[in-house]
């Protein structure tokens, strides 16, 4: 790959990094990253991957931008309200960096469509906000031997782990979704917008490290933090022999759609 003058200038702060250099930048520009969910986590991740010049960024989201998203989903702006999130995000990515090719999937992920969507990408970022999607993304990535970053946030805390084929998967830790009536109800939920940014940028960093093949990925260790006291903790996690998908006797042999616990206060028909 030959950089033009503009690219050399645009990526100069990457290129002068010993662990990136011209080769690393080329790898980023040849990389394909899929972001599932263009919300609190996906928004900051997409912005940094776009700025880094990742060659292809895929965006999956079925929702439209709502006013209450703007407190944390920093890729969407006030005039974008009611616009499909994938379109709003695509416009910003292209404005940041015309080198990036954006592919949009205006849909949710299901057991039937996810394998086809992740197939063409090098790395997947889970930026979804529900257990059904999180377990599905894990399963699809384990089956397809596709590296991915799990990320989740709640109130002031976050957790993230990176999966690469052979490492501890999300189900090794959590096995199955929690009982539907146990999920915190809406009055307990909420998120400090900047906390979403902290986690989304960790996920983007993992994607970039994976592309340039430098450093240590966050594999076999779950990183959790509580931003209220700003403490980070790393928990060593090992493959679980009883993991339903990557264990010794896996019970999951094909993709399944887990039931999605719904918030009791949530009016499911709210979206118009």
């Amino acid at each position, binding site marked *: 790959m030959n950089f033009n003058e503009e690219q050399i200038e645009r990526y100069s702060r990457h290129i002068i990094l010993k662990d990136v250099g011209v080769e690393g930048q080329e790898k980023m520009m040849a990389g394909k990253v899929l972001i599932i969910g263009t919300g609190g986590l996906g928004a900051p991740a997409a912005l940094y991957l776009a700025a880094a010049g990742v060659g292809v960024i895929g965006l999956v989201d079925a929702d439209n931008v709502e006013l209450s998203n703007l407190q944390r989903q920093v890729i969407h702006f006030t005039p974008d309200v009611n616009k499909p999130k994938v379109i709003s995000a695509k416009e910003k990515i292209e404005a940041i960096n015309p080198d990036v090719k954006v592919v949009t999937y205006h849909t949710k992920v299901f057991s039937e469509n996810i394998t086809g969507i992740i197939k063409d990408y090098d790395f997947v970022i889970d930026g979804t906000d529900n257990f059904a999607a999180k377990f599905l993304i894990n399963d699809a990535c384990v089956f397809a031997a596709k590296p991915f970053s799990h990320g989740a946030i*709640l109130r002031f805390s976050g957790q993230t782990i990176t999966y690469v084929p052979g490492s501890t998967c999300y189900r090794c830790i959590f096995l199955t979704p929690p009982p539907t009536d146990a999920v915190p109800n809406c009055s307990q939920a909420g998120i400090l917008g900047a906390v979403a940014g902290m986690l989304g940028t960790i996920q983007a960093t993992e994607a970039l490290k994976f592309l340039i093949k430098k450093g240590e990925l966050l594999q076999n260790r779950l990183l959790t933090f509580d931003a209220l006291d700003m403490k980070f903790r790393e928990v060593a996690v090992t493959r*679980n022999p009883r993991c339903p998908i990557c264990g010794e006797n896996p019970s999951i042999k094909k993709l399944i759609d887990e039931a999605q616990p*719904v918030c009791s206060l949530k009016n499911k028909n709210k979206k118009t």
Partner: protein
Amino acid sequence: MKIKVNGKDQVIDAASLTVTELLKTVKVESPEMVSVQLNGEFLSKEHFANKYVKDADEVDFLYFMAGGIEELPVSEWRK
């Protein structure tokens, strides 16, 4: 017994406790929303009631976290 809970030393006023009892003792708010790792091994939920935590054990509570940012209808919280 002296155990490590989430990486921190903790002295518990009992010789041993089941995982269920420990969850209560250390005041885990919603025990259904944690995955428990005992000495590096993940426990199935069915074993919380009959698996014992003893002196020098290391226990990690890993919280189920999805997003918690499901949109709350404005009409609900403005009341």
